[in-house]
């Protein structure tokens, strides 16, 4: 989150209209940037002034009485009109059956729609985990900090019921920083941390074959790539550009013995 982005959505942040991930990013930015923090304080003081202004009005006593009687009058007139007219004997089923049909259609369509939202949900979890790992210095980033794949890989033994492939890619410009345990979709997963110049890359790995490959750019400005390889599912996320991230994932999935 930079100053321009913060400035753009600071009001949404004040009003509690920003999703938790972006909220966290803004909070972080406000800590780091005195100018934005000052702008934020200004807006807060304005809200305080408004809140102290007791600007809410109570309806005058007579008004409610008058409105109530006017509405009752209208209701009576309506009742007489309806009563005088020969009413159809409503067949409620005829009215409700299109509704029932719509409901049925939705029942069939929802699982299909849900499949998409399940992917969305997962992508959101990935973004949240990535942001969390980078919050407040980098102490959340790694549980085991090492650029040596032979240190990182064994560290996962006994902590996960699978062994994630770990490769140091320093010679290709993506040095390994370490690994940590994370928790995605209610399962412990392996998170490997790499660096690209000043940027961090989180690579989440767990055994699974389902879900299609794809990539997306989140509204927060992260690139996310998902693909399956060799019985494992891989999610790479970073603020590096999507070309670099694609290259990174290809390298991470390459068989080390063939290199």
């Amino acid at each position, binding site marked *: 989150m930079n100053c321009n982005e913060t400035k753009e959505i600071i009001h949404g942040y004040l009003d509690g209209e920003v999703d938790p991930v972006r909220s966290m990013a803004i909070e972080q930015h406000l800590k780091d940037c005195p100018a934005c923090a000052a702008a934020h304080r200004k807006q807060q003081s304005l809200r305080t002034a408004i809140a102290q202004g007791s600007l809410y009005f109570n*309806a005058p006593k007579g*008004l409610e009485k008058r409105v109530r009687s006017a509405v009752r009058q209208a209701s009576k007139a309506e009742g007489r009109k309806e009563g005088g007219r020969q009413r159809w004997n409503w067949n409620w089923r005829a009215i409700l059956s299109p509704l029932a049909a719509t409901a049925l259609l939705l029942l069939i369509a929802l699982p299909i729609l849900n499949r998409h939202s399940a992917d969305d949900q997962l992508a959101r979890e990935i973004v949240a985990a990535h942001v969390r790992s980078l919050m407040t210095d980098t102490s959340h980033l790694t549980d085991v900090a090492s650029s040596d794949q032979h240190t990182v890989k064994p560290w996962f033994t006994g902590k996960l019921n699978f062994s994630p492939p770990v490769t140091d890619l320093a010679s290709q410009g993506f040095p390994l920083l370490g690994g940590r345990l994370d928790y995605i979709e209610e399962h412990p997963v392996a998170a490997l941390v790499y660096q690209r110049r000043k940027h961090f890359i989180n690579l989440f790995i767990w055994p699974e074959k389902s879900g299609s490959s794809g990539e997306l750019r989140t509204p927060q400005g992260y690139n996310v790539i998902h693909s399956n390889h060799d019985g494992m599912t891989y999610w790479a996320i970073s603020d590096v550009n999507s070309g670099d991230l694609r290259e990174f994932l290809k390298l991470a999935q390459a068989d080390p013995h063939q290199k």
Partner: protein
Amino acid sequence: MTREVSHESAILYCGNKTAQDEVRIINGSKSQNAPLVEEQDKLARFEQSIMPHMNAAYTLARWLASNDSDAQDVVQEAYLRAFKFFAGFRGGNSRAWLLRIVRNAFYDWLKQNRGEERKEPFDEELHDTMDERRGPDTLLLEKADHELVRKAIASLPVEFREILVLRELEDLSYKEISEVANIPPGTVMSRLARGREQLRSLLLASLQPK
């Protein structure tokens, strides 16, 4: 549907009557006084769900119309319309639903009674430069008393005033504001931002000795 009714009647009538009989009995007993009963039912539901929002309706109308007697007229008209359209109310936030009608009633009333409200262009440049010259204002703003804040909000152009009132006083979400004020959701935040900026400038201008 059908399965449910026949299941029920099987229990109630031990199989002596069919589902069709059961439905006919219900319809038959209802048809004579149905309009009156329905109307009373509607009134009761209306009084329960819409009447309690009188203060919210009056607050919005009061800030839009700027005086008590016009605000009362707007509220009464809005309530009558709300009652008329109540059958179309699909649940959800009944306060936001009512406020939308109050707002529409106000603009209709405005057209009939005042022509268009005078729009005084807000001199953003003037207020901006004032701001910079006068430096830190956070403490100063907190000294603003009720009357100053009231005056400042009252002098905002109506399109900013209504969004501020909906957000700060009625406490509606952006989505609800976009529905009440009939503007795209994306516009709510930018209009709030500009409204707050103007309000801040107005307040500072009135707080600073000339």
